């Protein structure tokens, strides 16, 4: 499992805009880099990131070989009610990881 860091407020007022920051440990190997023996290192990247709130998509990003290693994504959303965000990264070689975080709306 890749290490992730997810940062968002634990509580927010109804109607507030909240900022969510995510980091994940991943080499984002481009597929264009020669390895020590001269052959190209096979591509190994995260291709997609989706954030859902209570199952409903709130943010989606496609990632490409030019994205840096350990990709950092930050975005905002509206806090409307209490619930759980899920964060899913998927990519090459069957990579798939989902994390979650709760938000309490006051």
């Amino acid at each position, binding site marked *: 499992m890749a*290490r992730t*860091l997810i*940062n968002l407020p634990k509580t927010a007022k109804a109607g507030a805009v909240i900022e969510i*920051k995510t*980091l*994940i*440990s991943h*080499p*984002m190997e481009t597929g264009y880099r020669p390895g020590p023996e001269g052959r190209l290192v096979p591509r190994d990247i995260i291709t997609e990131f989706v954030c859902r709130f209570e199952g409903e998509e709130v943010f989606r990003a496609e990632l490409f070989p030019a994205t*840096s*290693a*350990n990709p*950092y994504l*930050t975005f905002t959303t509206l806090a409307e009610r209490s619930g759980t965000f899920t964060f899913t990264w998927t990519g090459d070689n069957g990579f798939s990881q989902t994390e979650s975080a709760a938000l309490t709306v006051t």
Partner: protein
Amino acid sequence: MRRALLGLLLLAVPAAAEIAPGERRSGFDQMTPELRAMQTDEAANPGQLWVGDGEEAWAAAPPTGRPACAGCHGAVATMRGVAARYPAWDEAAARPVDLQGRINLCRTRHQGADPLPFESRPLLALTAAVAAQSRGLPVAPPADPRLDPARAEGERLFTRRTGQLDLACAQCHDALWGRRLGASTIPQGHPNGYPLYRLEWQDLGSLQRRLRNCLTGMRAEPYPFGAPEYLALELHLMRRAQGLAIEAPAVRP
């Protein structure tokens, strides 16, 4: 291109005096606002991924049945201040050890485990977790006279010319800091952020990895990882950086 520029720039540079304490600047100060924000925001600093791994390893018992790091030392927060005073003298080995060397000594002496390889993720992670506890504290090299010979050797290595370009570390870092080398701004060359996340590496690396980069740039043969020359250089660099705040894990271009 870079090398030609370098030659022109450096041929005429006299041996510089050491930077006065009041003029000491962390490499942090020369970075763009965006990079500084990336370092200071724990949610954006990729080095925190290693700190997280290291904190987990700190609490995990080794397969040898001996205690975890936490078993002897308690919470990793008890390590506050340690990174600020390394490298330090080790009685039993009768030589200076750096922070990663100390961690490996604990593994071999106190955990009956193998030392972790240089630049391996587990060693960098533990070192980052320990070093991060000292963030904000001033670099405070110990006044231990047993360290003096290695420190003097470090100063010698720092100021002597070497490599195919016949350059000394001091020419860039004492005399030309703040000037540009190709696209980079030459920093004073302080060790206060290590291990750190370098964008060029797309990775976290040790001070030794950084020094290897500079040695290669000078077209000098880099010492192998763990060589006493790195310890000597680090002792000199820490003395030269006395008072600067520890930033580990820092971010650098």
